[in-house]
């Protein structure tokens, strides 16, 4: 045991954590209420409807969480705008910042490096955002665009059909429900595994709730970011002895595991249902 105290670095600000909390609550509710309708003929969907008080309640919850979704989308835009202004960069160079969230050539190289790492190569020289994290972020943008617009059409079908043919609502239904299946399936399997359930992090990586990671973790997991912070002299400014309180860590664990479990139950139900359909020739 060294005598130096554990040092922490903040990875997510309170505002960013708040946004993610909104995403969790709304996304989980949207997924549960929406899938209950998509798979209404399944017994687990009937259970969800029974527990909630009927399909009208599911619909109301779904629309309420749609509003939360548009709200956090708006908050994210404010966040990005603030970050842009802070950076002092031009819009283009801010968006395509090599260390930003938009995927670039380095990510492709890292992806290849990652596969090599899987087979025994060296761990890639990861920076602040790894490509699967960038994919998660961009997927939410894409998802809100696709699911949000088709969802609005289905929410206001009469108004929608004043501008577009009514049968486009049928197309919107397929897009909305299948894109949602993609989103829910992706978050509840790939995102959950990449972030929480993989053996290195199992059962939960609480950073999105508690905000900070230890300096040792940063150095090991994101060596490029660490080296950049050292080189720029920023590290001295961001490092702190104040880590997350035990209370916050416990809350994060309980809430996080509850959410991961709920999502996993839903996705297992969906997978079993889909497998039955494929077997049944549907």
């Amino acid at each position, binding site marked *: 045991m060294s005598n130096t105290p554990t040092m922490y670095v903040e990875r997510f600000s309170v505002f960013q954590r708040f946004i993610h909390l909104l995403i969790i609550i709304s996304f989980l509710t949207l997924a549960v209420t929406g899938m*209950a*309708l*998509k798979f*209404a*003929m399944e017994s687990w*969907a*009937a259970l969800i*409807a*029974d527990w909630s*008080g*009927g*399909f*009208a*309640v*599911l*619909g109301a919850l779904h629309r309420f969480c749609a509003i939360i979704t548009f709200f956090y989308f708006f908050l994210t835009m404010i966040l990005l705008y603030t970050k842009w202004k802070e950076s002092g960069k031009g819009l283009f160079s801010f968006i395509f910042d090599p260390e930003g969230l938009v995927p670039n050539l380095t990510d492709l190289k890292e992806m290849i490096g990652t*596969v090599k*790492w*899987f*087979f025994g190569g060296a761990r890639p020289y990861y920076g602040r955002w790894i490509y*699967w994290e960038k994919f998660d972020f961009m997927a939410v943008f894409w998802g809100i665009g696709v699911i949000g617009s088709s969802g609005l059409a*289905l929410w206001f*079908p*009469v108004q929608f*059909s*004043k501008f*577009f*043919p*009514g*049968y486009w*609502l*049928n*197309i919107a*239904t*397929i*897009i909305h429900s*299948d*894109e949602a*299946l*993609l989103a829910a*399936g*992706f978050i509840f*399997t*790939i995102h959950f*595994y*990449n972030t929480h359930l*993989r*053996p*290195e992090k*199992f059962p939960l990586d609480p950073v999105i709730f508690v905000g900070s990671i230890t300096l040792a973790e940063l150095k090991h997991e994101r060596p490029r970011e660490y080296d950049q912070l050292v080189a720029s002299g920023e590290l001295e400014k961001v490092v702190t002895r104040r880590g997350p309180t035990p209370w916050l860590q416990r809350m994060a664990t309980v809430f996080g595991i509850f959410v991961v479990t709920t999502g996993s139950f839903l996705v297992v139900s969906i997978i079993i249902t889909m497998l039955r359909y494929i077997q049944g020739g549907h």
Partner: protein
Amino acid sequence: MSHKDALLSRAGTFLCILLATLILGTGSAFALTTNDECLGCHGDKAMTTEKDGETISLYIDEETFTQTVHAKHGDRGCTDNSCISCHVEAAVEGDEHPYPMSPVDCESCHDKIGATYEKSAHGIAKAKGDKFAPKCSDCHSKHDILKPSDPRSTTYPLTIPFTCGRCHQEGSVMTTTHELNKHNITQNYSMSVHGKGLFESGLIVTAVCSSCHTAHDVQKASVPTSSVNRDNIIHTCKQCHVGIVDKFNKSVHSPLVTKTDKKLPVCVDCHTDHSIAKVHAKDFRLIIAKQCGNCHEHYSETYLETYHGRASMLLGGERTAKCSDCHGSHDIMPAQDPSSTINTANIVKTCSTCHPNANLSFTTYLTHATHNDKDKYPYLFYTFWAMTGLLVGTFSFFGLHTILWVPRSLIERMKAMTRGH
């Protein structure tokens, strides 16, 4: 009273006793002809007999019998109200009739009803020796027969379901020893709109068993002359639902309008029989798509793929649009007909029932759409497969990525543990 009178009276009594002793002694001058004579024995509550090991009472309650239809009106028909008009073999000289006697033949007076009964399912079963087949008395009772309008009668409307239920209630010996097409009929009836009309609302004008099945001409539905046969059921329901049948006869489902070899629906195909529910009741609304789907399978299945159909499967689903909400019910017409609720002339109004301010473009929403029909719905077909491709592609890529990651991640975890983290 004078002494002379008293003497005569005493002599009279003596003579009477003497005479009675003589008659009883020889038994030749007595005959069973009046009800009083029958009641001489059958008025005794203790009078019983043994039959198949069971003790059966042979007591007749004169008070009750005098109120029955036969006691009151027996003199109007072919016989009088005497015991022997039914129990003809009992009319013998002497004080004891032969035993056992043949069963009472109601047909000797009620010949028309008897002929009908003989051709009914009950009559045929009885002729075949089915010991559970009901005789007249099983429904009408023996010495307590009252008019159907008498609340105490076994054939009073409020009582009929119980009378029939003695045999037809699920679990009775009859239902367990016979092969029957329908089950739980009395339970289903009790829960039906007709049964509730009877048991809850106390209506004697509601349909009871005999209203549909008739009283004496009870036939299986498969028999062409049965009142509940497909070809006759509309007529049977029309006894009460005249206005509905008039409407129905003008609709596409009526054989008067549509000439086809295919089976056209009759009342029970949509409404069911014993469990018939109020059409606005949840139970009925939830089976509409299934009932219509028995013939219109493709439309029912594809309806279930759309929002209305999906939501209808969940709790509270009775509220979403069902077949009849858009197409109408008894007055249903094909879309080409200008009177049809889904004809272009009327469809905006039809959709507006639930979707205020609906417009013509809105009505082009496909309410029976499926993405499985490439020729009919190419847009839906290609959208579905494009989306499926996107899903399969994304999950394949990241699925593989994850699978390859698992062993590496386990190694990293073990490394971290040995490092002491």
